[in-house]
């Protein structure tokens, strides 16, 4: 859940086992319906219906809110195919996802391994490393826009102070660097949750495996490769899928720090949807991108659930 958010979108989609088991009650439908009614009403109205309408809008020439629109067939899809910004923002979205998995997922893993070895200072480091995750991504955008500020920012002033002023870059103005720079801000906020998940995974590894490895004369590196990392496999697939979904939903840092610029260099799918829907009022094209984004999310979720199911088998 931005939902922290963001939370559990890599959920396990396998059939609920209890549905097939005999369990307590057989009466039924009436009671279940009443208990589910508020959820069905809210979710149906604010989540399911908008999904259907998004599909409809993608086939119309809607030019804004509260306007008439008519059916135009596949027009918007063809326009999307011809729009270079669509392709570019899609490419940047994948790059953005990759950066986030590597930077945030990687840092989360490394710090989880390090923190788990501590005893007395463990809670201190775990707490301190988690602090960035408490900050809203929008606020993270404000913070890091200032960190990258070419004149007063933390990076440029610190580099100048220690005599490395020549290392300064246009962190947010260089088209080749900007997406990475913004992603560092997002990943700074994101890694804490992944770290906690990895720490929980490490606690679930059977300690006797380490003892057995020691008896076999394994060194720390061999223990890491042969016991720890295989033991983290489940959590690892979960974190990768979660990080990909969180990356896909990434919006606030880009919106706040660069608004997609310079020259669309940091435009990702969400910022382009926002621009098309609320600034250009091109709802048809925006809806096509919305569908594309949903499909990407579905593919990621399903692929990782298959992968996890296969691992479990």
């Amino acid at each position, binding site marked *: *859940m*931005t*939902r922290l*958010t*963001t939370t*559990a*979108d890599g*959920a396990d*989609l396998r*059939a*609920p086992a209890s*549905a097939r088991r005999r*369990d*307590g009650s057989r*009466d*039924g*439908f009436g*009671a279940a319906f009443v*208990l*589910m009614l*508020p959820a069905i009403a*809210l979710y149906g*109205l*604010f*989540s*399911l219906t*908008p*999904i259907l*309408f*998004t599909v409809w809008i993608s086939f119309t020439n809607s030019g804004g*809110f*509260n306007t008439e629109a008519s059916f135009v067939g596949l027009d918007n899809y063809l326009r999307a195919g011809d729009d270079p910004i669509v392709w570019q923002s899609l490419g940047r979205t994948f790059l953005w996802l990759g950066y986030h998995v590597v930077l945030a997922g990687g840092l989360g893993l490394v710090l989880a391994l*390090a*923190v788990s070895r501590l*005893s007395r200072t463990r*809670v201190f480091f775990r*707490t301190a490393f988690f*602090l960035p995750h*408490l*900050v809203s*991504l*929008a*606020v993270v955008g*404000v*913070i890091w826009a200032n960190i990258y500020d070419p004149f*007063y920012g*933390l990076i440029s002033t610190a580099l100048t102070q220690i005599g490395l002023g020549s290392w300064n870059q246009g962190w947010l103005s260089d088209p080749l660097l900007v997406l990475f720079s913004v992603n560092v801000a997002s990943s*700074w906020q994101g890694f804490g*949750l992944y770290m*906690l998940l990895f*720490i929980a995974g490490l606690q679930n590894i059977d300690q006797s495996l380490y*003892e057995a490895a020691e008896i076999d004369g394994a060194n720390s590196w061999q223990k890491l490769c042969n016991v720890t990392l295989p033991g983290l496999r489940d959590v690892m697939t*979960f974190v990768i899928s*979660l990080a990909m*979904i969180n990356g896909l*939903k990434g919006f606030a840092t880009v919106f706040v720090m660069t608004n997609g610029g310079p020259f669309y260099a940091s435009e990702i799918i969400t910022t382009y*949807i*926002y621009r098309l829907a609320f600034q250009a009022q091109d709802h048809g094209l925006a809806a096509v991108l919305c569908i594309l*984004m949903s499909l990407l999310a579905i593919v990621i*979720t399903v692929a990782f659930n298959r992968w996890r199911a296969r691992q479990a088998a």
Partner: protein
Amino acid sequence: MSRRKPSELPAVLMLLPVLVVIVGPFLWLIVSSLKTEREIGRGDPFSFPAQLMWQNYIDAWNIGNFGSLIGNSLINVLGVVTLTLLVCAPAGYALAKIRFPGREWVFYAFIFGLTIPVQAVIIPLYQLLSNLGMINSLWGVTLAQVSNGIPFGLFLMRSFFMGVPNELTEAAKIDGANHFQILTRVFLPLSQPAISALLIISALSTWNDFFLPLVMLISPGNQTLPLGLVRFASTYNTDFRLVFSGTVITFLPVIILYILTQRRFTEGLTQGALKG
């Protein structure tokens, strides 16, 4: 094992530079927020202010209307958390413990929502709230956020309830309890861990949400804290002391709250994320 643990000093020494990099931005903001504009302009991030400028905070608070932003965010969080629990607990119970035809399909319909990002439905969602007269209203945003969180909350409550033995349900039934009574008297008192996980996760995600408030809340008086800070920071983007102290006002309360409750918080967040 009786073997002595090796000293953790080397590990701590290796982690200290990482700590500085991770926590550095907070410290830099806090120190800079207490400087004068002239001291910030000198461009030395490692220096301390000659005199602590608490006045920066008073100015930022008044100019940025942070009192109203924090109030709106609190109302928003309270609304989302309360509604999420009221909606997800009964539905999670029904899907976990009542047998009825089509149960799996209902469950899948809810789980489907877990995969659809809110940005992907924003156009009809905006139109819908506009038709309901709820644009620029905290209630509109709250309802949209609750709905967005239903799949996760329901999934969490359902998986927790499924772990409660059926014998308890049966016993309560024999005593003549109906489903509503079983839920409120047997299940809810047992499900404190699931409830606190859901509470923590939905409170944090709502407090930090930006996209829905950005789209829906137009007038500054109705905006929530992250949105208000972004507007404030772009309005006064050359007035660094204001931007810095406003930013600190935004993140400090949550960080203090977290440090005070960190054990419970970490537990709830991890369990919630792993269950979900």
